């Protein structure tokens, strides 16, 4: 023992042996892939919320007149506008996929670690496919 506080970390195993209890705070335990997926669900949710401003702008412009519609059309064709639109669709499909997993979880299914690990690959794969499909159709 090097520090007086270590006495708080001494415990006994079930067969009575004195052991040093493990310290908590292993960051690698806390920051894993599944946690990033979960945080990503919240981040993309907030990003999509900001993106609804563009959606409402688009609808209101379409209802206002051709000049207003041309302005939103022009913005979406600028590099910044296209990037916003691309980010919005990618975030939307990601949130869509993770959201469906949440709905499956709500039925009590797919809670075991193997199913969770398998599903994260599916989530990322389907997100890429749907985003790619969206843009391939849009640009063709």
């Amino acid at each position: 023992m090097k520090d007086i506080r270590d006495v708080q970390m001494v415990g006994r195993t079930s067969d009575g042996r004195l052991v040093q209890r493990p310290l908590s705070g292993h960051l690698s335990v806390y920051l894993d892939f599944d946690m990033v997926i979960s945080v990503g669900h919240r981040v993309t949710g907030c990003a999509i919320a900001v993106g609804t401003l563009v959606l409402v702008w688009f609808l209101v412009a379409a209802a206002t007149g051709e000049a207003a519609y041309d302005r939103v059309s022009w913005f979406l064709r600028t590099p910044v506008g296209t990037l916003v639109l691309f980010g919005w669709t990618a975030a939307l499909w990601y949130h869509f996929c993770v959201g469906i997993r949440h709905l499956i979880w709500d039925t009590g299914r797919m809670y075991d670690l193997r199913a969770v690990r398998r599903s994260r690959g599916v989530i990322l794969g389907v997100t890429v496919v749907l985003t790619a499909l969206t843009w391939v159709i849009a640009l063709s």
Partner: protein
Amino acid sequence: MADAKGLKIETMRSYLGRARGLGSAHAGFHHWWVVRLTALALVPLTLWFVFSLVQLTGAPYAAVRAWAGSPVNATLLLALIAATFQHMHLGVQTVAEDYIHTDAVRLTLVLGVKAASALLAVAAAIAVLKLAIAG
């Protein structure tokens, strides 16, 4: 509650919770349920909306107006708008309540997002109704 001889538990609420008036408001389940219900509605609506819009890329103004103004599309657009903004303000509220611990900041943000969601939803709905009814 506690008497002179000992502790008698009559409620699951803590004394601190009772003193502050911060107990269950019995609104949590409804919040959770509406998020799920709108999420479920948004699955088909999102697929329909994105792939409809994608096919309109580069279409002339008149075609976009005609698309949004048709009765079926206008109905689905209104459903999409209602579900989206309801899901949105409840979702942002969850995130804000988890991460923002300063009461004034959290309340300002949550109420601001709720106000913005309501106004955006009404604006979008009026736009769709104008396209559908006024042509």
